[in-house]
């Protein structure tokens, strides 16, 4: 087990300004972006989180790499708790082993730096090498590894296309020799033919370097190509965790089924699908009980009042009363 999240939550204070609260008597308001999420990522696997916008998947990525501190719960990396802000110094060595790849390759590379400096930054910051010749050799090797030429190091980011920029992001992430990569929608800003190149590259690097990925995406088809196990999120909570194969063959949670039905039928097989209904509710006032009950065809009185827990059955888990009671 490389990474373990135990009942992790993160709330954001979205209250109105103090003066408004005093005059209008409006209360403090908390947005629970992530609300009690537990899962594990095994060494060498690709664990994917999928869900629609606002479900909290990117917040989880930021909690894991330490860009946010959790409001509650524990995050363990290689058996050591890393979520405690007091112990940041002690866990710094562990944090070096994880890196992040961001969604927008136009925003995540410094336009004023040459590519070789961008890729070399983690090497310098982490003190992995100090000899300039040694750094240059390592940068050239990294660029070659992601399918760029060593000479590309002299160029600036604006000279590259979106797909090439994402290759630079990957080279930068790999330069600190991490064993765990958090990839937050790494291909959703790219055209499909370029997306295919990046997904193939990531798969190939994983096999070669033995990397572990946490792969975050809204696109189930992309996830089916890269993931070993998948967690489906809805309004800040995990509703289902399963092996990729199992999830696509036998989705359990009604939300997972709905997501699968919403994927366009590219093979034009004419498979029967239930039309999707409703929208994601406002996360500021999530429905009581199971957050999915207003859109769920199987909801009953219990679903409206009692929040379902994530219950494991063998290798799969789902948070659904109907599944637990064998109603569906």
């Amino acid at each position, binding site marked *: 087990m490389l990474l373990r999240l135990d009942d992790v939550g993160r709330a954001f204070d979205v209250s109105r300004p103090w003066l408004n609260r005093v005059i209008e008597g409006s209360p403090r308001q908390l947005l629970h972006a992530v609300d009690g999420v537990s899962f594990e990522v095994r060494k060498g696997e690709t664990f994917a989180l999928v869900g*629609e*916008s606002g479900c909290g998947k990117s917040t989880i990525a930021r909690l894991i790499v330490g860009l946010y501190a959790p409001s509650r719960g524990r995050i363990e990396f290689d058996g050591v708790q890393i979520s405690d802000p007091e112990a940041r110094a002690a866990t710094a060595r562990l944090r070096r082993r994880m890196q992040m790849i961001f969604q927008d390759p136009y925003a995540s590379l410094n336009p004023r730096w040459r590519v070789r400096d961008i890729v070399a930054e983690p090497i310098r910051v982490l003190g992995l090498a100090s000899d300039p010749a040694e750094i240059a050799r390592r940068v050239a090797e990294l660029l070659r590894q992601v399918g760029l030429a060593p000479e590309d190091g002299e160029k600036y980011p604006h000279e590259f*296309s*979106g*797909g*090439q920029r994402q290759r630079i992001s990957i080279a930068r992430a790999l330069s600190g020799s991490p064993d765990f990569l958090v990839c937050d929608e790494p291909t959703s800003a790219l*055209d*499909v*033919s*370029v*997306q*295919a*190149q990046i*997904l*193939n590259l990531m*798969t*190939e690097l994983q096999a070669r370097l033995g990397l572990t990925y946490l792969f975050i995406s*809204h*696109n*189930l*088809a*992309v996830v*089916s*190509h*890269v993931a070993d196990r998948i967690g489906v999120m809805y309004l800040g909570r995990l509703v289902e965790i399963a092996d*990729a*194969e199992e999830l*696509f*063959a036998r989705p359990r949670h009604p939300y997972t089924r*709905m*997501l*699968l*039905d*919403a*994927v*366009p*039928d*590219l*093979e*034009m097989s004419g498979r029967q699908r239930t*039309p*999707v*209904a409703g*929208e*994601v509710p406002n996360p500021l006032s999530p429905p009581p009980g199971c957050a999915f009950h207003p859109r769920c065809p199987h909801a009953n009185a219990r679903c409206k009042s009692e929040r379902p827990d994530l219950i494991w059955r063998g290798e799969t888990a789902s948070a659904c009363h109907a599944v637990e009671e064998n109603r569906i």
Partner: protein
Amino acid sequence: MGAAPMILEVKNLSIEFPTRRGKLLAVDGISFSIAPGEVLGVVGESGAGKSVTGAAVIGLLDPPGRISGGEIRLEGQRIDDLSHDEMRRVRGRRIGAIFQDPLTSLNPLYTVGEQLVETIRTHLGVEAGEARDRALALLREVGIPAPEARIDHYPHQFSGGMRQRVVIALALCAEPRLIIADEPTTALDVSIQAQIIQLLKKLAREHGTAVMLITHDMGVIAETADRVAVMYAGRVAEIGPVRDVVRAASHPYTVGLMGSIPKIRIASAKMHAPLVQIEGAMPRLNAIPPGCAFHPRCNKSFDRCKTERPEPRAVGPNLAACWLYE
């Protein structure tokens, strides 16, 4: 031309952008047509020229971009050479538009009812009361719950999916013959996207409206379009019935594009089979290769592809611009 059953006919359309370093040809001699009630999908990657084509049809090319050749006909009438004022009367009345971001298509300072009523009165010249009734009927038709209450709400009070429904209602106000939908579902979540696609399809069928659906998403095309035109570097690589293009493409670019789209696979052995890759990237407008624009990335290219430009020719039910089918 009067007897032509087509709503939109585009013939040899070229669009250029003059720059200091010479003219850039964003669209290079493309032809297609759309019949009543038909949805034509126009698909391609960034920079293929699909949005520019849509903008040219509706007369909203950003200067200095201009039509440098060919013609556009709406119900047999030429519209590419109309004056600014004449085109303004065609836009909204006979051609409706739906854009990617519903927030920028709506005025935040007016209620959706005011915007609908204004549009209806401008184009149809009816009384305020009648226009409001029509606005309510439209909101109901696009699936907005409780339209009597919602008609007096402002755009920010609607969710993204509901807002896009309002934009569709706005586009339908004057019963246009043609709707240009430019990435109408790209800003929406998958579950909302499916609903909007169904709505567009239903409306086109019921009203006999021709729809030009511009998108980068082959999935959306497969779900919605009757025919599809695949664009590459300002040219149509392949055009044909959606089933034939999606399942049995002829042009090597379409084949590569279809192969590179991840599909949900259940069989475990195939789970990690690599996706089909097209090496390289679409050329920039100032460096479009001679001959077939796709030849440097094509694994089937031969000498002729490097010098002579292929014209679309019939390959089964499709038209493909490729020398392989000479």
